[in-house]
């Protein structure tokens, strides 16, 4: 099962390597990991997507919690949550009809073209991982120059929140 674990960690050098080191040392999967400072500069917010049986996920959350740098964590997939990922795609766009096709496809996915040259478009797209996958699939493989994905971030719906 795929799980999204949100963490608040001390914003200190080494915190990230402790967490990623835990995953590699114990043989757990990391599908994606994102991290950035929060509105409180002493804290970082991290989102880890991982897969494993219930037992492994239980161990992952316990082991993460045991790390001294981890202040708080939550497996948000246990609740009602929203998940988004952001992607930049650089595609070849050389004359017509290629340029119009890319533009049309991007409109369908509600993507935005954020950089344009004579030969390329750079497209920004936000959505669930599946949506990003679908966009890439719909785009002709040969057209794709470069893909940058942020990894998932998630937040709980409603009043529940991961805060101190």
């Amino acid at each position: 099962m795929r799980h999204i674990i949100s963490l608040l960690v001390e914003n200190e050098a080494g915190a990230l390597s402790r967490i990623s080191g835990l995953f590699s040392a114990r043989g757990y999967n990391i599908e994606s990991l994102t991290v950035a400072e929060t509105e409180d500069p002493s804290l970082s917010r991290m989102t880890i997507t991982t897969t494993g049986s219930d037992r492994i996920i239980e161990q992952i959350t316990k082991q993460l919690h045991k790390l001294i740098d981890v202040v708080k964590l939550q497996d948000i997939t246990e609740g009602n949550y929203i998940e988004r990922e952001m992607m930049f795609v650089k595609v070849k766009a050389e004359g017509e009809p290629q340029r119009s096709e890319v533009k049309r496809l991007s409109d369908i996915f509600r993507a935005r073209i954020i950089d344009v040259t004579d030969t390329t478009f750079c497209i920004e797209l936000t959505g669930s991982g599946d949506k990003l996958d679908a966009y890439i699939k719909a785009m002709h493989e040969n057209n794709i120059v470069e893909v940058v994905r942020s990894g998932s971030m998630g937040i709980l719906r409603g009043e529940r929140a991961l805060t101190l």
Partner: protein
Amino acid sequence: MELSGSEIIIQFLKDEGVEYIFGYPGGAVLHIYDALEKQNDVMHILVRHEQGATHAADGFARATGKPGVCLVTSGPGATNAVTGIATAYMDSIPLVVLTGQVPSHAIGTDAFQEVDAVGVTRACVKHNFLVKDLNKLAETLKKAFYVATTGRPGPVVVDIPKDITAPHIKIPYEYPATVDMRSYNPTFRGHPRQIKRAVELLLSAKRPMVYTGGGVILDGAHEELRQLVRKLGYPMTQTLMGLGAYPGTDPLFIGMLGMHGTYEANMAMHECDVLLCIGARFDDRITGVTSKFCPYAQIIHVDIDPSSISKTVSADIPIVGPAKQVIGEMLKAIDKTDSEIDKPALDSWWKRIKSWQSQDSFAYEKKKDLIQPQEAVEELYRVTNGEAFITSDVGQHQMYAAQFYHFDEPRRWINSGGLGTMGFGLPAAMGVKLAFPERDVACITGEGSIQMCIQELSTCKQYDLPVKIINLNNRYLGMVRQWQEFFYEKRYSHVYMDSLPDFVKLSEAYGHVGIRVDKPGDLNDAMVEAFRLKDRTVFLDIITDQEANVYPMISNGKAHNEMDISPLQQARQAELKKKGELV
């Protein structure tokens, strides 16, 4: 009070009540060593290798319950300490290891003797710190001691760049008596409802079993454990790490469990219907194959570390909390409840256990001219009245020590259970002897293990640490040889140590007493002599049967009820069967 970083470190250690630090100087810690030299409150023990420093501090910690403290230099000083840090980590021993680091401005430049100590030790510490600001030095040290000694204890490394310790930069110092860490809140109380449920389940048992580990000793919960087990009258077993929490000579203790535990303890584990586990972690050497582990039991697991619970074996009633507090509450709950122990069921359970016990699974055959390793340990037990502190290295001798030296008190049995570190025993014995100079301290070892830290004989001389070394010398790396005998068709690959040193002469060269014993009849005299020489380190080189094996044994992939028993025991069983006496 204005102090330099080095002075802060020393003053802090004094304020923290640290009596001994074990260490080895070097470039990055020169300022600290200069500050050490100017005072007399904290005594520094100069080891001969940083691994020895960590093991000695570890032995001190295990024997006293206080944190062990080390000071080593950057680079190789730090990497040499890693084995000892990992040893402490696996057995949850509180250590604070101060590592010197190259000056802040040189970090990351591949400077002389630079290693990323925080990175290198990350996987084997409870936590580690790099001190980047002199103003946070005292606070960081306090955090290190706090983290090392609370919750599930463990080693903490504090990496200190040389410029932080510069003598000419002084700042105001005040001992930070308290510490506040929002991200670290160990549990201090077990959940009352879970404790009540556990007690009800425990009292309803027909075939109960109590299984305890090092956590009971670490938390000082042995008195509570004794009360609990005696109140219930249930059979109990202890792990290698737990020996001594419950008296080894008490009839309710049915021996150590696991790979080389007693037949009765392992059979009782297999057949029990309720298992109370306190402060143990279902290690693979304990459980055998987990799919066949305790197939009939409902399991209550008490542990301070939530991640220990349901890690390898699922618990039916998990209780996260300190052993002492949780057992204390269990005792109260037993007094309060109307539920009662099923006495007839317990009686017949004990009968069954006694029938297993009658097989005497540790039995071995003595030979007239050849010392059996077991009898050496038994002799040591007699000569020391079972009251010595025993450290050990790793291998067959470690198992014999655990099987034949019956520990009646906690913190007397000091060995590397989790990591299985050869070379642990001698330096650990030094740490114990420092803490208890009036007590007998013996290191049971083998000719393989002792050579991994034998340089510490020199430290024993320098600081007058008269430990007794009981070297069970079979000229083989015995445990590996045993596995090669059983599982590799006797292909003894690189387990014979040719060109062993003359240990008697070697000890004498270090300024100690060496005695060689090769006849069973001389064992007693030699041991008596070793302990009579109160103020001398004595190296007893005991030449033992080369191919003695440790029995009984649960092989890889086997369950508790699938133990291999010794040939001697097999023959006895065959005889009993013939007579129709075997159940």
